[in-house]
């Protein structure tokens, strides 16, 4: 990425507030841009984009393999593991893949050099162009529970691109969201003006503040609840980037998998303006 290009993450505390809608429609009006769907447990940006799929590759995490001939059952690996992924039973280590974070501490701790780190596939990374968008997403394999390594891989896959990058983050404020938002230049928090929406917006804003990522708020379906979201921005001194009123026609287009900027002309202007506002805020960040 060159010096002028920005990385914009789109997050929300609550799910279903409109992260995907924002991500795909902003990408569609942003000119040459890279769009990353980092909601690897349930990626859905591609449903709105007719992507010409190109390269696909497996994403791996490292997992310890123990050479039982070298292992003395001393238990140093178990003590080093912060994730309770190793137990030593009958002098033999037993490793739980679903608990392992692939941090490599056991590998470093083993005095007998009995542990090697082997790759274990946890998902796939797929990419391809759609119009001016270079699209990349990750899909976590069914049964896998840890998204962050795959999210990191998706972000790495965009390295070297000169364009601006839009990252569609997973919902919530947990490790996957943190991983998606980490090191981005600006984070757009999407909310809806309901008690649940505001509650989770507060958590999300706390997250970005603690991470030192500048953020602003977009209120989606802005006319369905009350003015709490706007008040929140005023009280916290958070930039209100825009408000999108509820629109049944927009919901219908979404349900058909259409981009709002294609289906309804007025949204082209709305998202173009919003994108310019976001870029301006991000540059001042």
């Amino acid at each position, binding site marked *: 990425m060159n010096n002028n290009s920005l990385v914009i993450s789109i997050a929300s505390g609550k799910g279903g507030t409109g992260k995907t809608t924002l991500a795909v429609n902003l990408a569609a009006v942003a000119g040459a841009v890279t769009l990353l769907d980092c909601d690897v447990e349930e990626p859905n940006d591609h449903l709105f984009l007719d992507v010409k799929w190109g390269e696909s590759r497996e994403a791996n995490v490292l997992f310890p393999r123990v050479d039982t001939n070298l292992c003395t059952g001393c238990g140093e690996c*178990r003590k080093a593991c912060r*994730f*309770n*992924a190793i*137990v*030593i*039973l*009958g002098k*033999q280590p*037993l490793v*739980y893949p679903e*608990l392992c974070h692939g941090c490599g501490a056991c590998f470093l701790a083993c005095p007998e050099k009995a542990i090697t780190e082997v790759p274990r596939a946890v998902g796939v990374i797929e990419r391809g162009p759609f119009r001016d968008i270079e699209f990349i997403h990750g899909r976590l394999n069914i049964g896998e529970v840890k998204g962050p390594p795959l999210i990191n891989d998706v972000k790495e896959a965009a390295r070297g691109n000169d364009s601006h990058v839009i990252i569609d983050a997973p919902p919530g404020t947990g490790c996957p969201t943190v991983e998606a938002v980490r090191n981005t230049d600006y984070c757009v928090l999407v909310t809806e003006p309901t008690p649940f929406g505001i509650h989770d917006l507060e958590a999300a804003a706390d997250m970005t503040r603690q991470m030192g990522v500048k953020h602003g708020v977009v209120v989606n379906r802005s006319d369905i609840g009350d003015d709490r979201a706007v008040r929140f921005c005023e009280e916290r001194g958070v930039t209100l980037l825009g408000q999108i009123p509820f629109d049944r026609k927009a919901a219908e287009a979404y349900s058909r998998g259409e981009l709002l900027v294609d289906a309804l002309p007025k949204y082209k202007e709305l998202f173009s303006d919003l994108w310019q506002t976001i870029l301006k805020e991000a540059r001042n960040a």
Partner: protein
Amino acid sequence: MKIAITSTGNMSDSEIDPRFGRAKFFMIYDDEKDSFEAMDNVQNVQAAHGAGPQATQSVADAGCEALITGHVGPNAFNALKMAKIKVFTVESGTVQEAIDAYKAGKLKAADSADVEGGWV
């Protein structure tokens, strides 16, 4: 032989704890001495994940060859199997009652996990 019983307290008349990984205490019964020793399980009660395997580690390290508890999840069951610790389940009652039932041969050995992982 030593037998671990999951317990809500540190006495032989404490109620059994139906949870294994996150049991409050393990009462370790030594059948040679006919005596109990209490072992707390604070570390695993507070663990984010992997309480079952780590509880197995504790019980194995204490030299137990059998476990009496309420329920066992899949991760714990695999670990217990590897540690060659026999699993017996009880519904309720005190630690002493569980041991008495065990000695009378009234408890049946479990041959598989009976709850999902993370059961509380």
